[in-house]
């Protein structure tokens, strides 16, 4: 572990109800000025490293799907216990976050829809079992049938879009008396798009 420079002393401006603390930049030692012609491109290097890793993405997604299917099976066996609910949510949430990076954008969209159902349904035990099962099955199918064929990609996108529409219809109906959830359901996503 390399030795670190001592942190510089802060300057504190005291106001009646708050302090503003300004410090000389403690990470200044890692900055250097370079002209635009500098040949190094760390972003391109990182993108290439990700591309070199991409042969593993299929296996990773299969593992993530296996976890989701197991979490769903636990819910079917024991109902929405807090532990089962949390594990189903985390499994779907991980796919929502990871799948697009791994090249499975339609699976990410379907997982995002499933997360919304788990997060905003007032009573998970009352959610139609098919609504959750169809999300899980769709994610598994999209991952299993991963393809470069644009027509099949379009089918996967249509499937995840339709799931989202059905899920949102359900969530709007069951949250009609819960304005804070309705607002969250209607709010646009801030997730970056391609």
């Amino acid at each position, binding site marked *: 572990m390399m030795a670190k420079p001592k942190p510089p002393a802060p300057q504190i401006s*005291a*106001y009646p109800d*708050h302090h*503003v*603390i300004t*410090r000389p930049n403690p*990470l200044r030692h*890692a900055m250097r000025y370079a002209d635009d012609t500098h040949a190094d491109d760390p972003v391109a290097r990182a993108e290439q490293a990700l591309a070199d*890793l991409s042969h593993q993405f299929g296996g990773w997604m299969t593992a993530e799907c296996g976890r989701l299917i197991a979490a769903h099976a636990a819910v079917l066996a024991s109902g929405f216990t807090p532990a089962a609910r949390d594990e189903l949510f985390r499994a779907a949430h991980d796919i929502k*976050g990871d799948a697009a990076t791994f090249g499975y954008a339609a699976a990410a969209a379907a997982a995002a829809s499933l997360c919304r159902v788990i997060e905003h349904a007032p009573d998970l035990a009352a959610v139609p079992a098919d609504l959750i099962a169809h999300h899980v099955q769709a994610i598994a199918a999209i991952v299993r049938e991963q393809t470069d064929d644009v027509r099949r990609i379009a089918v996967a996108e249509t499937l995840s879009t339709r799931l989202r529409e059905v899920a949102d219809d359900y969530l709007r109906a069951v949250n009609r008396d819960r304005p804070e959830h309705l607002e969250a359901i209607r709010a646009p996503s801030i997730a970056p798009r391609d």
Partner: protein
Amino acid sequence: MYRIDFNKLRFLVCDDNPHMRRILRTLLHSFGAREVYEAEDGATALEMFGHYAPDIVITDWAMPIFDGLELAQMIRQPEANGNPYAPILMLTGHSEKRRVTLARDAGVTEFLAKPVSAKALYQRIVSVVVNPRPFIKTKTYFGPDRRRNVNNAYIGPERRSGDSAETMQQPSLMDKARIAG
């Protein structure tokens, strides 16, 4: 333009998902970082934070038992032994605006919604290294200034009063040593 010598920075990555940790490690090493420490939950990350004193923390939000939001709140303890000013990047699958607000109010420096890209991560790291924000301490908040822009058209309630300030220069460790000597 400024460039960052990543090999002079120490990172702590906290994510319960091993695949995402691998992605982040790959990205950071490709940027040039050598010191990347990894934790799979918030409690381990907090322990590593105290031990390794990272320059930058990158954390997921949703993790079992002790999540990324709680980790941020624990780091932002002004009286804590560790560095409460360390930049915290929240990298999460949560993609709702209210989550951004919650993270901001926990003292998170930058919020980055997944899917992660090399460019977005690089830009956030450059931002926290080149343009560190002042810290604000109130009765209920300690963290980077949440006001990124000056909005002269703002007409809502003010959380802080803007009376004249009394400025105090904290003595450096060297000055304290001289006084003690």
